[in-house]
């Protein structure tokens, strides 16, 4: 066996440039596999990070029904969720660890001589835990602030930077919205963009009562955020939420609901669907170039068999069986494609970080994709090397010895 490997290596070395050019197809294909899979994995990891930044075991209830598509004007527009719904969700659904209503309004906010337009979200005190916010400085508002519709708020990093300058602690400052002065209680730590690309740091949070009474004048909520204790209770909790809300809204069986429930899992599935398409596309390109690379190997092996007809004749004459010759040429093809595969993997390791650096694509090279790529390259060697090897093995020794 060692002797066969040595022979194969020698044959490859003999024509080092030709061998390299032959491998190039495999190198390109395998590095495309590595980079493509790493882009898919990187994008998925990014999305998972974003989804996780929304909080854990999250359920969001939107007012209005979105199963009818865009006809109703999207989610959260018709405002069917009420204070009573909020109370009963808190009271009646087992396994819920936190509930917060959400109202949203966009207002002009001013501090000193700076002002900016910002999205204000009115929430309960639970919201910070449900959505996994952390404080850079300061603290959360309290249940008492909610009950009294106190003029307090929490400010996101981007908004704070706009109003007070980069890195300046805004806690204790007063900002004015619709001429109402709000005291900043907390400075939120950065969360980055969410899965749909909007900046989660360009926000002001305040008690929902304050937002409704002092800013928007709304009386109904656009959505609720709920947190359940664990992923296991999520399905039951979701059913329970639906039944509680149906009861509250007096919706009988068979009638359409005026709310929709989305879990975090569903959102992450939605977000990964689009980059799956990208992964499939890249894989298709990689697959095509691997086939082309395989044909290149077959071509060069056929040339090699013809060139070495005499050598094959000698081997047959001194007692090599057909399978010995087959094995030798097959091994040579596999060696060509496997070495090409290894070089392709190295290339992929080199290219993926470059892609992140210069094109901003998140990439993540997984061990399994490397193993897969190497296996694929070896299989290509076997598949495309088989026909030339068979041709070599079936040569007639007399003809082969006479070949010039």
């Amino acid at each position, binding site marked *: 066996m060692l002797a066969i490997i040595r022979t194969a290596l020698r044959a490859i070395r003999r024509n080092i440039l030709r061998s390299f050019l032959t491998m190039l197809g495999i190198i390109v294909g395998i590095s495309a596999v590595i980079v493509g899979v790493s882009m898919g994995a990187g994008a998925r990891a990014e999305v998972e990070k974003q989804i996780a930044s929304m909080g854990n075991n999250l359920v969001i209830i939107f007012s209005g029904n979105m199963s009818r598509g865009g006809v109703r004007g999207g989610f959260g527009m018709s405002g069917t969720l009420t204070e009573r719904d909020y109370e009963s969700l808190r009271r009646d659904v087992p396994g819920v660890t936190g509930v917060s209503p959400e109202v949203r309004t966009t207002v002009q906010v001013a501090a000193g001589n700076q002002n900016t337009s910002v999205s204000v979200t009115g929430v309960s005190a639970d919201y910070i835990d449900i959505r996994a916010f952390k404080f850079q400085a300061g603290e959360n508002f309290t249940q008492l602030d909610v009950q009294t519709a106190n003029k307090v708020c929490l400010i996101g990093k981007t908004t704070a930077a706009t109003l007070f300058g980069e890195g300046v602690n805004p806690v204790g400052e007063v900002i004015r919205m619709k001429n109402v002065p709000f005291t900043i209680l907390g400075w939120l730590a950065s969360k980055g963009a969410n899965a749909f690309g909007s900046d989660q740091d360009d926000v002001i949070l305040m008690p929902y009562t304050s937002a409704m009474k002092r800013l928007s004048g709304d009386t109904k909520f656009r959505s609720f955020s709920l947190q359940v204790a664990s992923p296991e209770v999520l399905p039951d909790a979701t059913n329970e939420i639906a039944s509680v809300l149906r009861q509250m809204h007096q919706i009988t069986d068979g009638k359409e609901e005026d709310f929709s429930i989305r879990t975090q899992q569903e959102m992450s599935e939605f977000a990964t669907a689009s980059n799956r398409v990208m992964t499939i596309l890249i894989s298709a390109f990689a697959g095509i170039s691997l086939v082309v690379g395989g044909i290149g190997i077959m071509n060069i092996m056929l040339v090699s068999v013809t060139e070495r007809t005499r050598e094959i004749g000698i081997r047959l004459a001194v*007692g*090599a069986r057909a399978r010995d010759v087959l094995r030798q040429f097959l091994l040579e093809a596999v060696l060509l494609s496997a070495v090409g595969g290894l070089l392709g993997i190295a290339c992929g390791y080199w290219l993926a970080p470059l892609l992140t650096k210069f094109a901003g694509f998140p990439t993540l090279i997984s061990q399994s994709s490397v193993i897969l790529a190497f296996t694929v390259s070896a299989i290509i060697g076997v598949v495309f090397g088989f026909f030339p090897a068979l041709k070599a093995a079936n040569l007639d020794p007399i003809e082969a010895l006479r070949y010039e």
Partner: protein
Amino acid sequence: MDPIIKLENFRRTYRNGSLEVQAVRGVSLNIFPGEFVAIMGASGSGKSTMMNTIGCLDRPTEGLYLLDGVDIGKLNRDELADLRNRKLGFVFQGFNLLSRTSALENVELPMLYSRPPISAGEQRARAMKALEMVGLAQRADHKPNQLSGGQQQRVAIARALVNQPRVLLADEPTGNLDSRTSVEVMGVFQSLNDQGITVVMVTHELDIASFSKRKVVMRDGLVRSDDQVVDRSFSADALARLDAEQKAVHLA
């Protein structure tokens, strides 16, 4: 004593399209262990076809060929390969060494295909011994292109001997060599034959055939004559004569 090679009414017909070529048309021949046979004939006489069959590279179309008592006609490709590996050694006109491969590795080649497998160490030892027999032990690591024609042919002979075959087959072994080197190669054959190895050689040169013990002449696919060699040449004498001739040329 049983013959090592036994041909009985051996025929070989090639079909080239609708044309049927009878290369050998019924030959019966017995070669016994220890013989040194030269098969002679013009091109197209059928001697190469006969050699291919004796060498188990081909099978008779009709008739019988027994090598060491084994009927070749009944064997498949792999069994023939095995037989070539164990019982036969080949020496070709064009040497047929693997280029860019050392003399030692060339001699090891048949042992790569031996069953049961031979350990790398023993392969090396046996290849060295075979090279010693042909007087090339010092050149074991030379590549064929670093060796003269005669040396290359001796490497080929060492390769043919390395598996201790019953028969050494040589197809025009001196065809590419000058007359002095030819005589030297014949010397190697004669000394191997003296050690008991059966040698069968195809040649069209009468003076090369005279180094053998028995001369079979073929024409048109049939054996025309089959005689013991009278007035046999010996390489030592022939070399001495060549030296003398050369000296005469220098003196003149």
